[in-house]
């Protein structure tokens, strides 16, 4: 029995940004070349019809992964296989037959819609550009259908984005994203700019879209509770590396990596009034000069000399993958979570 091929397979994905001064300035004022390894060897797969979420704090590289997948940024190394096509060397929009299957929803509902365009034109742009609906009248009918599908009315097509609230704009963004009947959506923090009561509406809409259209999601967020609601799989990123990748319920019930545990312990939670334990100390280090070995070792209660010098492997472990020497050596078992599930 062979499992069906996952829709998306990412392996060894790397993105390095060159922050060096221009050559002449380096020559004059000294100083070497400086690089940021924004994404430093990331591997994951997303089976069809499921949701993988990437979580992590700012600077962990999760948004860069989204840009690399969509071709908005060129990977330094690694492979992106989507539905049997290698996309690592292509740019956004190319090849059209494949790229039309991949769409994106952005974080900022105010910047993601052109303020000078009417909503109908915004939603129709992908269909026009990819040629899925060459006839303008058919395109317009499809726009009306999409507007109603995401919970707006066909008459809203004549309005400009500024006439809508944040949640409604995000619905417009979703309508644009599904207009070319894609299979795969990258959602980059789609609710983090929204108010809580509206966030629930958008999350529910995204889940019902997934059920009805069989969509596959890569969901990017810093909010573990949101991720818990939407995901099948969760990947935790820290300073450009995936440190843990596991089914969603597993991550919350039995987090393996010490960083995952730290994240779970520190989420402000409405059911956790007035926790007064000692808080885990430290902050995410500067990504230009990440710690040697395991990036997390300066904040890790289990760090030893091996952690400080040797980068841990991303090892498979009962259906999950973890990048941690302590887990590999079995040292973590003696360190119970304060809070579980």
């Amino acid at each position, binding site marked *: 029995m062979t499992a069906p091929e996952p829709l998306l397979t990412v392996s060894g994905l790397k993105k390095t940004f060159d922050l060096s001064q221009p050559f002449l300035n380096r020559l004059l004022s000294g100083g070497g070349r400086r690089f940021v390894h924004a994404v430093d060897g990331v591997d994951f797969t997303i089976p069809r019809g499921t949701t993988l979420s990437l979580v992590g704090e700012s600077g962990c590289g999760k948004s860069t992964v989204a840009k690399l997948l969509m071709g*908005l940024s060129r990977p330094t190394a690694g492979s992106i296989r989507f539905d049997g096509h290698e996309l690592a060397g292509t740019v*956004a929009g*190319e090849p059209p037959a494949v790229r039309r299957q991949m769409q994106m929803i952005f*974080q900022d509902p105010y910047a993601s*819609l*052109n303020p000078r*365009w009417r909503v109908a034109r915004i939603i129709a*742009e992908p269909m026009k*550009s*990819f040629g899925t609906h060459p006839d303008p009248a058919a395109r317009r009918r499809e726009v009306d259908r999409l507007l109603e599908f995401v919970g707006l009315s066909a008459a809203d097509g004549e309005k400009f984005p500024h006439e809508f609230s944040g949640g409604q704009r995000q619905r417009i963004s979703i309508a644009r994203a599904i207009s070319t009947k894609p299979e795969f959506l990258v959602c980059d923090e789609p609710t983090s700019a929204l108010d809580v009561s509206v966030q629930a509406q958008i999350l529910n809409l995204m889940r019902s879209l997934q059920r009805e259209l069989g969509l596959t999601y890569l969901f990017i967020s810093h909010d573990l509770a949101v991720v818990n609601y939407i995901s099948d799989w969760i990947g935790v990123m820290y300073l450009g590396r995936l440190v843990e990748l596991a089914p969603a319920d597993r991550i919350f019930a039995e987090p393996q990596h010490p960083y995952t545990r730290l994240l779970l312990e520190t989420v402000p939670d409405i059911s956790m009034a007035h926790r007064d334990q000692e808080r885990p100390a430290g902050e995410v280090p500067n990504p230009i000069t990440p710690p040697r070995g395991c990036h997390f070792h300066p904040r890790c209660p289990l760090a030893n000399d091996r952690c400080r010098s040797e980068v841990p492997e991303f090892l498979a472990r009962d259906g999950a993958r973890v990048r941690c020497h302590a887990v590999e050596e079995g040292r973590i078992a003696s360190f119970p979570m304060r809070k579980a599930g």
Partner: protein
Amino acid sequence: MQALSRAYSSDLAWSFRHSWTARISTLLLAVLFLAALLAPLLATQNPYDISQLFLLDSELPPAWAEGGDPRYFLGTDEQARDVYSSILYGLRLSLIVGFASVALAGAIGISLGLLGGFMGGMVDGAIMRVADILLSFPAILVALLVNGIARGILPPDRHADAAIWVLILAIGLTNWVQYARTVRGSTMVERQKEYVQAARINGVSGMGIMVQHILPNVLGPVLVIATINLGMAVLTEATLSFLGVGMPTTQPSLGTLIRIGNEYLFSGIWWVVIFPSIVLVVLVLAVNLLGDWLRDALNPRLR
């Protein structure tokens, strides 16, 4: 109807209704534009038509002064041209040169600014270095240079006919830098925005993104620059004509009229220089006041 009422209640309209300077300068400009447009109807003679000039009537003072002739309301010059009619026709030429050179400068500047801001890298570097070099010369010197080159290329007998085109070219090529810098700056901000990323994801070409997405979002400040530039262009034209390298005496613009009048000022013939000068000052002042108001109105943070 709905669009009308929306325009009426927009911020710009509100600010217009509450600004005296904006309303007065608009009124003045409307009068001047109409006068220029209807010059053939309003003028008492065609100053370009030698057959309508009577040398006996030369150097007459304005109608109300001693020795004035009611047919020549603002007096005549040494060739017996009616000053009032000459001003109308001169105003026309000044405005044509002004608008055309602003359009030329805008077209060049907006295109180069968009291209530089969007492409970045070498293209941007090259455009901006040229702009820097242009900016390091006084505008009038660059205009003189372009003017000189154009006149050098053209045969002498074509100079009079080509004068207006040479002026438009000289002033247009001088003034595009400001548009380019402004548009480049706004373009660099806009191209980072997520709606541009969405367009890239959907396979929209670089040209499509520049023209359809970014251009409409960077035009606001351009309108302000264009208005203020109109005043500058009219003044540059007047300066070039005053220096004798602009419009010829057979087709005088406001600047040419002032130059002609200037030569006779010391023989007591003041009316030939004063009246065109007043019209020029009013025109430029009104344009600049309108431009200042527009800048403040489009930039609410300044208030």
